[in-house]
C-alpha cells in the first residue's frame, strides 16, 4: 500500500455549459488502499468519476494510470485499464440472472461462437465464493436484495480483473449487518491489492474504513489526508468550507401562538417517511433538508398529493387535508415546483405564455359559461408575471427551450403566482441556475412569504437555507432529527444534523 500511485489525477477541469463542475482536482489512489471521497452534493465527485470512467472528457488536466498519462476515449478503455465503477443505482439487468449480469459484455465463447456457459461458471464460481455470494448464480437479479446486488456488482468487477473499484454510496440501501459484510469485503479487496474509491456522505464509514480521504468542495479537491491524522471535525470543515458568507436575510422569529397553515401529524410512508410531524405557519419560509434518501422528497410528494401516505393526517387551515392527486392539492391552494425542471416542470416546445398560464387556465375563460381563452388577458397575465419575475425573453411567444436555466426556473415558479397559492413547495429551486438568478429566485420567495404565502423549500445545499429560511427541518432516515430556528440556522448546524444518524438505525 505504498509507492507509486495506481491512478493519478492532476489539475483536472471540466465544464458543462456555463457551469464549471471541476475547477482543478488532484487525486492519487494507491494500489490496495481504500480511498474515501467526500463532498457536498454538486462538489464534483460524480463528475470526476465520469471522467475516470471514460464517459466524460476533461477540458484540461491529466490522468495517469501506473504513471503513464492516458486519454480515455470511452468506457471500454477504462475497463481495459482495470478501472471498474459501481454506481448507486447498480446497472444490472433485472430480468437476467446473476451469472448473466456478471458476464454482461464480456462473454466467453465456444469454438462455434456460442456463449460457453460451462467455462463461465467455472471462472465465476471461485470469485463468487470469495465475495461471499451464497445465493445460486442462476437466481434472477430482480428477486435479490440490494446487498446481494452489490455483491454481484463487485463480483463483476473482479471477474474483469479490476484494479480499482469505485463505489458510490454503497451503504445507502443496506442494513447495518449488510453494511458490515460489505466493509469486510472491501478490506479483503484492499489486502489483495485492489484499490477502492469509496464515495459516501456517511462520515462514520469514511473514518472507519478508509486509509486516506480526499474532500471536494465546489469543484476543487480541498484536502487529501491520511485518515490516521484526520479528525471528524477537520473532515466536516473541509466539506463545508470556511465561515458562511454574511447573509442579508434576517429570519422572522418563530411565534408558536400564531395559527398554523399546515399541520402534519405522524405521517408514515413505507421506510422513507417515519412518523413525521410538523407545523407550518402563514407567511413562513420553512427549509427542509437532509441527505439524498433522507425522505424529504417523499414527504413533500405526500403533501402535494402525488403519493398517498400509509397513515397519518394533515390539516390545512383547520380543515382535514388529504389530497388524492396533485389536482386535488392545487384545488386546495397548494403549488409545487419540482426538482427536475426539464423533466417535470417545463413544457418544452411551448411558448413562455403557454408555460406561464398553464396552471391557471380557468381564470382565462372569456366567461365562466363560455370556455374560450381570452387571448388578450392571457397575454397580459403572461407579461405581468414575466416582468414581475424579470424573466429575460424576447417575447412571451418565445419557446422556453431557448431560455437560460435561471429564466426557465422563474417560469416554472411563475405559473403558480397568479393562483396565489396558500402553500408553495419548491424542490431544489436554485439547482443548475447561476448566482445572479439564484439571488433573484431567493428574492421572489421572500417576497411571496412577505405577502402571506407559506413556502417550503427543499435544498441539498447547506449554504442555501440560511440565506432563505425562517426555520429549517433536517431529516435523516425518514425522520425529522433537528429543527433549527432564527440564528441557529447555519451551514455548519445543517451539515452536522444531516450526518447525524438516528439511534434506531444503529
Amino acid at each position: 500500500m505504498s509507492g507509486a500511485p495506481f491512478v493519478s489525477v492532476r489539475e483536472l477541469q471540466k465544464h458543462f455549459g456555463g457551469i464549471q463542475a471541476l475547477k482543478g482536482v488532484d487525486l492519487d489512489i494507491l494500489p490496495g488502499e481504500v480511498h474515501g471521497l467526500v463532498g457536498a452534493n454538486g462538489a464534483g465527485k460524480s463528475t470526476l468519476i465520469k471522467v475516470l470512467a471514460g464517459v466524460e472528457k476533461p477540458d484540461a488536466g491529466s490522468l495517469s494510470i501506473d504513471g503513464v498519462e492516458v486519454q480515455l476515449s470511452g468506457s471500454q478503455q477504462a475497463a481495459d485499464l482495470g478501472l471498474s465503477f459501481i454506481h448507486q443505482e447498480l446497472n444490472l439487468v433485472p430480468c437476467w440472472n446473476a451469472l448473466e449480469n456478471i458476464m454482461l459484455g464480456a462473454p466467453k465463447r465456444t469454438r462455434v461462437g456460442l456463449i460457453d456457459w460451462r467455462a463461465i461458471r467455472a471462472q465465476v464460481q471461485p470469485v463468487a465464493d470469495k465475495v461471499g455470494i451464497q445465493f445460486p448464480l442462476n437466481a434472477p437479479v430482480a428477486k435479490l436484495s440490494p446487498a446481494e446486488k452489490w455483491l454481484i456488482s463487485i463480483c463483476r468487477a473482479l471477474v474483469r480483473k479490476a484494479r480499482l473499484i469505485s463505489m458510490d454510496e454503497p451503504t445507502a440501501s443496506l442494513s447495518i449487518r449488510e453494511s458490515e459484510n460489505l466493509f469486510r469485503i472491501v478490506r479483503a479487496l484492499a489486502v489483495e491489492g485492489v484499490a477502492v474509491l469509496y464515495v459516501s456522505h456517511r462520515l462514520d464509514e469514511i473514518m472507519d474504513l478508509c486509509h486516506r480521504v480526499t474532500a471536494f468542495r465546489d469543484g476543487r479537491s480541498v484536502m487529501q489526508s491520511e485518515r490516521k491524522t484526520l479528525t471528524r471535525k477537520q473532515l466536516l470543515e473541509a466539506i463545508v468550507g470556511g465561515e458562511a458568507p454574511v447573509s442579508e436575510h434576517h429570519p422572522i422569529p418563530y411565534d408558536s401562538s400564531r395559527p398554523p397553515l399546515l399541520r402534519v401529524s405522524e405521517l408514515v410512508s413505507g421506510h422513507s417517511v417515519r412518523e413525521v410531524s410538523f407545523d407550518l405557519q402563514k407567511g413562513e419560509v420553512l427549509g427542509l433538508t437532509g441527505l439524498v434518501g433522507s425522505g424529504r422528497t417523499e414527504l413533500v410528494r405526500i403533501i402535494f398529493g402525488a403519493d398517498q401516505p400509509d397513515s397519518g393526517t394533515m390539516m390545512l387551515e383547520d380543515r382535514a387535508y388529504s389530497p388524492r392527486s396533485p389536482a386535488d392539492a392545487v384545488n386546495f391552494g397548494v403549488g409545487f415546483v419540482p426538482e427536475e425542471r426539464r423533466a417535470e416542470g417545463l413544457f418544452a416546445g411551448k411558448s413562455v405564455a403557454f408555460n406561464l398560464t398553464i396552471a391557471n387556465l380557468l381564470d382565462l375563460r372569456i366567461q365562466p359559461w363560455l370556455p374560450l381563452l381570452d387571448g388578450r388577458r392571457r397575454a397580459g397575465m403572461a407579461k405581468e408575471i414575466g416582468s414581475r419575475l424579470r424573466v429575460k425573453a424576447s417575447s412571451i411567444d418565445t419557446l422556453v427551450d431557448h431560455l437560460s436555466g435561471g429564466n426557465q426556473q422563474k417560469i416554472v415558479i411563475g405559473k403558480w403566482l397568479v393562483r396565489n397559492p396558500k402553500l408553495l413547495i419548491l424542490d431544489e429551486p436554485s439547482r443548475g441556475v447561476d448566482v445572479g438568478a439564484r439571488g433573484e429566485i431567493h428574492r421572489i420567495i421572500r417576497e411571496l412569504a412577505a405577502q402571506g404565502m407559506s413556502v417550503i423549500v427543499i435544498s441539498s445545499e447547506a449554504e442555501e437555507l440560511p440565506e432563505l429560511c425562517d426555520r429549517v427541518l433536517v431529516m435523516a432516515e425518514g425522520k425529522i432529527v433537528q429543527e433549527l430556528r432564527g440564528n441557529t440556522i447555519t451551514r455548519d448546524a445543517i451539515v452536522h444534523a444531516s450526518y447525524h444518524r438516528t439511534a434506531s438505525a444503529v
Partner: protein
Amino acid sequence: MPKPASQNRIALSLLAKYGTILGLFIMAGIFSVLAPNAFPTFGNFLNVLNQASLSMIIAGGLTVAVIVGELDLSVGYAASYAGVLVTGLIANQGLPVPLAIILVLGCGGLIGVVNGLIVTKARVNSVIATLGIGTVVVGLNFAYSTGAPIVAGVPDSFTQIALGRIWGVPNDVLIMALLVTVLWILVERTPIGQSIQAVGANPVAARLCGIRVDRIKILGFIIAGVCASLTGILLASSLGSGTTGAGDSYLLAAFAAVFLGSATLRDGEFHILGTCIGVLIIAVGFNGLAIFGAATFYQYLFQGVILILAVGLSSLSRYFAEK
C-alpha cells in the same frame, strides 16, 4: 466552412417546415400542366374537397389523440363498424335516422372511452391497446352484420346526408369544415385544448400542474372515436350501404395526413391545421392518379411512400427545431 453549412441547415429546416405546402403546390402545378382540362377546374376542386372530407374528419379526431401523446389504431375499424351499425339500425331495426346517428356517434365515443381506460388505467401501450380494441370492434362488426353488406331498406333520407348539396357545395364538405373549425377552436383556443397540448408536451409536468392527465387522455380517445364514427356514417350514407370493411383503409390515410401535418408550419408538432394540409396532399395525389387512370396498385404505392415520407419529415423538422 461553417457558413455554407449553417445556410444549408437553415434551408433544410425551412424545407422541413414549409416543404409539405410547397409539395402540395408543386403537385397541383404538375397535374394542372399535364391535365389542363381535367384537373384545374372548379368541379374537380369540389370533387377533391369532397373526397378529402371523410379523411379530414377521421384524421382531425386522430390528431387530437396524437396531440395528447397517444396513437389510436382503432379509428379505421371504428369507422367501418359505424357504417354497418348505422345502416343496420335504420334498415333492420327501423330506428329513425337522427336517433340511429346519435346512437352510433355515442358508440364511437364508447370505443374511445374503452381505449382510454385501457391505456390510462391498465397502462397498456396505446398501439397495442387500440390494435386490440380495433380487432374486437371488427369482431363486433361481423357479429352484427354476419359479414354481409347491409343494402336493402336504406332510405333516401339517409343517403341524402352525404349526397346532398347546399348552394352547390356537398354536405360532406360543409360538415367537414364545421368539424375542423370546432376542433381547431377546441385545441387552440380553449382551456381544455391547452390541457390537451400540455399533456402531450410533458405528462409529468401536466400532472404536477394539477391537470388530470388520465381524463384528458381519455377525452383524446373519445374525440378520435366520435370522429371515426362520423366518417363511417357519412361513408355509409354516400355508398348507400353498410359494408364490413368499408372504413378500414382510412386508418393509413389518416396517419399519413396527421404526420404530414406535424411537419407543416410548426416544428414537428401535431396540429389541426397541419392535418388539413396533409389530407389535401393525399387527396390531390389520389385525384391525380385517378385522372391519369393509374392502376389501383399505384394508390397503395403512393399511400405507403407518403406515410414513410410524412413520418420522416416530421422527425426531421423536430430534429432541426432542436438544433
